[in-house]
């Protein structure tokens, strides 16, 4: 690596809250972009998402390495100030319920007047346009709308839970749109408006099942842990409380290796299990046999015995397993501890998909970027700033 950080010289400004927006800019910030969040005191409790309620201002997810400026942009002077901050940016990101910022005078056309090549990304559940445009909801609900809950869980039970799955799919596409727009602007000098719903990116990951419907009129349903062309294929119960190991056998070779590792190489030729079709037909019996074996072993032992035999297997890890035990994540230095004004250190993970030197700092305190942004970037005087603080424009 050259030491030059990937996005040095790029500035992002955001008005965001709750996961999707902040995650989007977090990548750029982690790679050296200067990231500024415009916040006001009253909305702060919603920033960054996270567990808990009514909690004091604490370390927030996806805010490390960002500067915070506190502006009350409801007032005309605040609006003016917010516009100036946004116009100093290469990329502006907002994920407010659609239309809010435009109503306030901070929409794409408003900013474009002062900065013609701005890359302006607006992200909300269903997009800025259309009969359902600008509708607000949460990632749990959108994951359901995008089809993921229906295809998760057991066929004899209600749909399963996938948390806020689409909250992590959508930012990937937001980032791609931003990166593509930056590249296009590099070549042509033109910015653009990126109208990113979360629904449309979410559906990208449903594509094969969607085609099964548009072509075959088949509605994909949940199938537990079954895979139509693999057996054994499940999460198997291991020693200890609620400990599991996933095992997946696809080929004849893997099946023979599995049986050896299982301690019963002759099982490979058992007529109940010798072929894939036979294993699928007798899958319940097979799963029972596997569970019996795994039940007297730890998940870690099952995984290592199977992997040594060339069979895909993995401990169903909890967060504790990941942070404290997983040797691969340790070796890859996946987790970083952030310093925090609070006693508990906050464990976060930087974007892991490229090897970079990543600066990780604590998340900003409200308005900690005020001086730098207002004085250094916008060139305001101390008096000017003091006046706006008095008027409540700078919160």
């Amino acid at each position: 690596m050259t030491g030059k950080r990937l996005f040095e010289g790029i500035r992002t400004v955001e008005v965001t809250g709750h996961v999707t927006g902040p995650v989007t800019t977090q990548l750029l910030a982690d790679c050296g972009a200067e990231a500024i969040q415009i916040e006001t005191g009253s909305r702060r409790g919603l920033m960054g998402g996270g567990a808990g309620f009514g909690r004091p201002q604490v370390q927030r997810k996806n805010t490390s390495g960002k500067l915070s400026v506190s502006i009350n942009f409801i007032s005309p002077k605040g609006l003016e100030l917010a516009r100036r901050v946004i116009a100093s940016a290469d990329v502006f990101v907002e994920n407010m319920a659609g239309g809010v910022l435009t109503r306030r005078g901070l929409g794409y056309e408003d900013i474009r007047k002062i900065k013609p090549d701005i890359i302006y990304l607006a992200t909300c559940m269903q997009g800025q346009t259309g009969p359902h445009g600008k509708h607000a909801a949460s990632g749990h609900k959108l994951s359901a709308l995008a089809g993921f809950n229906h295809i998760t869980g057991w066929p004899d039970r209600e749909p399963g839970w996938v948390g806020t799955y689409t909250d992590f799919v959508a930012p990937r596409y937001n980032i791609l749109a931003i990166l593509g727009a930056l590249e296009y602007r590099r070549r042509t000098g033109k910015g653009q408006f990126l109208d990113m719903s979360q629904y449309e990116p979410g559906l990208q990951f449903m594509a094969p099942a969607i085609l099964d419907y548009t072509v075959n009129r088949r509605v994909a349903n949940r199938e537990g842990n079954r895979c139509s062309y693999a057996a054994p294929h499940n999460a198997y119960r291991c020693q200890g409380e609620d400990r599991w190991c996933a095992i997946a056998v696809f080929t004849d070779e893997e099946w023979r290796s599995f049986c050896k590792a299982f301690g019963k190489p002759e099982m490979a030729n058992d007529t109940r299990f010798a072929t894939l079709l036979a294993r699928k037909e007798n899958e319940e019996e097979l799963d029972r046999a596997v569970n019996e074996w795994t039940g007297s072993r730890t998940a870690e032992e099952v995984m290592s015995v199977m992997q040594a035999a060339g069979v895909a297997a993995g401990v169903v890890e909890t967060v504790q397993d990941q942070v404290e035990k997983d040797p691969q994540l340790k070796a890859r230095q996946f987790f970083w501890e952030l310093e925090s004004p609070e006693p508990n250190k906050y464990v976060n993970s930087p974007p892991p998909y490229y090897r970079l030197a990543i600066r990780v700092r604590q998340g900003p305190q409200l308005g900690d970027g005020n001086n730098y942004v207002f004085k250094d970037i916008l060139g305001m005087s101390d008096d000017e700033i003091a006046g706006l603080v008095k008027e409540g424009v700078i919160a």
Partner: protein
Amino acid sequence: MPADDKTETMLSPYRALDLTDEKGLLCGKILGDMGADVIKLEKPGGDAARSIGPYYHDEPHPEKSLFWFSLNTSKRGITLDIETADGREIFKKLVKTADFVIESFPPGYLDKLGLDYTSLNKIKPGIILVSITPFGQTGPYRDYKTSDIVAWALSGEMSGWGDIDRPPVRISHHSQSYLNAAADGAIGALVALNQRWSTGKGQQIDVSIQEALSIMDGDNRNPAWSRNPGTVRKRGEPAMAGAGHRTTRLFACKDGYVSWSHGGVSVLAPSLPLIKWMQAEGMSNEFLDNFDWSRPDFGAISQEEMDNIEGATAKFFMTKTKAELLEGAIKRDVMLYPVATTADMFDDVQLKARGFWVEVEHPELGVTITYPGAFGLCSETPPKISRRAPLIGEHNREIYEGELGITKEKLAVLKEAGVI
């Protein structure tokens, strides 16, 4: 629809060579939909991913895999066996013309063929190599195998999916894990491209499928554990941290289910618009009518109180279909969505209004097929499907003959030798 003309897109000037298997197909699709010239390289006879269903009219055939169709849009296709000496020579010629090479071979495989990053960079300085593997290029699990269920197991996420009296589950059907990792590969490619413009240097992007999933945290298990080490959220535990009650998160309705929860940040009073709706339809009760929905200690109300609220809510939902609940949610600003099936989304009025569905021509089948379209509406350079997935070796002539100038006769020899 025929392959697009060269109108400017986000990635018009760039070419990607896509050698991935199932683990990385989406990466090339994304770059291709964004306008790059993506060439899918398959071993002669076609990639193994063509065996993955579902199939067109349930006819299992390497040219009828809907799975293959969906993840290889906007790519041209050639066949090449890079394990042969002739194949490697041709590949190197192609690398000279490329900006990206995307692959998902086991770590070390390309090294053995003399096609590792350093070697590729000698051939084409500035080349960007995107490598997508189960656990990354390094570490004790480097040579371990994965599959979708195994990847999710090792991601931390799967521990929260399913019911406590049954095994943890994965999301059914095609591999979600690979899609997330492949998208990260595309991000890495464009990040590296951005850097190349200032440094002149390419790099290898090392995507670990385990890591791509481990950054996902749909249940706030990481912060919960961070604040209270030892707090391991179990699947089927629909509680807010520190709450005095459990909340239901999926409710049955007349013709299916909806995703709705009364849990949430009290200052938003997200329940209120729904309660108002229930009141408007005479389905509220005294308790709900007198309840203070913006009380700051909402999270601490008793289970009995929550049961009361949820009971009335459940009754209300049972009088309505998914479509009615969606319509009402939009109209009344309720943060509710149906648990949609693939049939539901096809009827969705919003997607239709956004022009989301696109018709893609499949002349080899004599039909057009409706595909999910662009991932976003970008005002200058919208991503879009420029062509259907390639047939096996469909562009061999166009690229080998047309571009590399290999004669027809030589191509026949290479075909006979199993090189293409």
